[in-house]
């Protein structure tokens, strides 16, 4: 009979879980740039003297810089992730890993976990609130982060699950994200994260006039598309133009007396405000970006936590992204075939990853890419993307501040937008317009060392990422 899952420290829990050389350990990124858990587990692994580990961390943030040291020492052999930023991204681009990083999407990751191609030996849950049985949620405790959507598939499939927490509730939890029946061990530490890095206090609306010009065009596209009607389901990122466009959408919905279905994805206060205003019935939340959304998911019954699996796994009977009418997504490059890059910049440097980009694009009825025509003298529309994150077949419209291009495969949509007298151009025309402003950039030569593989959500490898050549 099992009575107490509490283990005094992380190293002991790892040993109890049977940690060995070459195992796969998984982690999630809900504590974002305030996360202490990944670094603490890596330190514990170091004291245990294991090596050759695969780290499956849903997103890598600047705070995870110590990974570089552990890669150099041989403790970490490979990475499996959906998004990388900060010093680790730079190090990967410089070719620090002998094995290419496996880049997945937020929906591809649970697909791989469920089908067994990403087998997890030990899942390490950054658990803001745990009860004595081992039930976990993200809403309580000093490091509350709201939704725990990205680690739910790991907790369900991993060989062993360790909950690392800084808050053990005396009362049994009322709202449960991960049930005790999935949790092997509980380790109480002094703190699992820095609240200032976990969520933004507030994400402010941009005042950048270019972002607002893009947002106005995006608003006009949504209005003219015919998709804006009762039951409208919507997702957007937290980028400046996307948030501004959401504010304009909100004004349109009020004016038209429309009532939407659901808001999806990573959630900010602007989504919460629309829910509270009853413009939408529900929020389905895989990740909270700010304090407002953390509070809302704890208090508002219409604000639901969902797992990455039901969010975007293409192997399921359905996933939430399939029901989207419109998604607004960003881009570092869009090519003349409407392929989109959010993995690398135009220097080939790793700057991110799909996250839910290619999932939402595939699912939504209309996928709108919002981007400035020119960013720091580099044209956004290119001949061919440095890296393909999202295939052009799932992209419908590119909206820039100077004009809108529609995927030629969407004739009906093109007719609607034309009728609304929107500033439509072919994507080649937008490219020519950009080049006319910037001059023609010199083509870059990348090295032939592969540092990353881009797995599309369905498991197909669609591109490779190459090391940056010193010059």
């Amino acid at each position, binding site marked *: 009979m099992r009575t107490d899952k509490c283990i005094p420290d992380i190293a002991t829990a790892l040993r109890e879980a049977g940690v060995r050389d070459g195992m796969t350990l998984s982690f999630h990124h809900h504590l974002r740039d305030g996360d202490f858990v990944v670094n603490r587990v890596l330190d514990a692994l170091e004291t245990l003297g294991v090596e050759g580990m695969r780290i499956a961390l849903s997103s890598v943030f600047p705070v995870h810089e110590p990974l570089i040291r552990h890669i150099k020492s041989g403790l970490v052999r490979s990475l499996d992730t959906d998004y990388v930023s900060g010093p680790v991204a730079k190090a990967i681009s410089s070719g620090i890993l002998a094995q290419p990083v496996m880049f997945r999407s937020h929906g591809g990751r649970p697909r791989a976990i469920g089908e067994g191609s990403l087998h997890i030996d030990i899942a390490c849950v950054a658990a803001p609130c745990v009860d004595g049985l081992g039930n976990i949620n993200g809403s309580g405790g000093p490091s509350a982060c709201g939704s725990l959507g990205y680690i739910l598939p790991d907790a369900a499939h991993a060989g062993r699950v360790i909950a690392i927490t800084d808050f053990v509730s005396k009362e049994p939890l009322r709202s449960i994200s991960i049930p005790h029946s999935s949790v092997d061990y509980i380790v109480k530490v002094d703190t699992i994260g820095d609240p200032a890095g976990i969520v933004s206090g507030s994400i402010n609306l941009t005042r950048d006039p270019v972002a607002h010009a893009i947002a106005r065009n995006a608003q006009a596209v949504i209005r003219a598309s015919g998709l804006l009607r009762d039951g409208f389901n919507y997702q957007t990122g937290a980028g400046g133009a996307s948030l501004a466009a959401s504010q304009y959408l909100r004004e349109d919905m009020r004016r038209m007396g429309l009532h939407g279905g659901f808001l999806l994805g990573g959630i900010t206060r602007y989504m919460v405000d629309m829910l509270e205003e009853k413009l939408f019935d529900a929020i389905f939340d895989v990740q909270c970006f700010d304090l407002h959304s953390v509070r809302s998911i704890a208090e508002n019954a219409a604000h639901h936590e969902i797992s990455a699996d039901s969010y975007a796994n293409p192997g399921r009977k359905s996933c939430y992204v399939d029901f989207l009418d419109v998604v607004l997504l960003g881009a570092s490059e869009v090519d003349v075939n409407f392929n989109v890059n959010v993995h690398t910049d135009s*220097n080939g440097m790793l700057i991110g990853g799909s996250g839910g980009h290619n999932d939402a694009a595939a699912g939504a009825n209309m996928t709108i890419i919002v981007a400035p025509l*020119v960013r*720091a*003298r*580099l044209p956004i529309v290119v001949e061919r993307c440095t890296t393909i994150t999202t295939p052009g077949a799932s992209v419908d419209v590119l909206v820039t501040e100077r004009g809108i291009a529609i995927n030629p495969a969407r004739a009906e949509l093109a007719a609607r937008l034309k009728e609304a007298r929107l500033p439509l151009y072919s994507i080649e025309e937008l490219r020519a317009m950009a080049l006319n402003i910037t*001059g023609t*950039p*010199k083509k*870059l030569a990348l090295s032939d060392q592969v540092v990353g593989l881009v797995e599309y959500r369905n498991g197909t490898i669609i591109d490779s990422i190459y090391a940056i050549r010193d*010059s």
Partner: protein
Amino acid sequence: MSGIKTAIAGTLESNDIMITVSPSRQEGKNTIAVESIVMRQFGPAIIAAIEDSLTQFEVGFVHIDARDRGALECTIKARMEAALLRYKELPS
């Protein structure tokens, strides 16, 4: 840096360039140092724009320190013009 005649125009914001003009480091010629986030794509074009401005606004032999954050050519020329005219107005 007291005592050395310098003039500055521009900022380190994205899409801008910061130009600092000071006396030339080599007698009898202009010297130019460029640092840019788009060096690999536009390095020669940035230097050409700076040289154009130096020809257009005669201020004697100077050193140009350019820190570029992806400025368009028109921006580079505007910042050069402002920096050179400011430099010209300084007491020798």
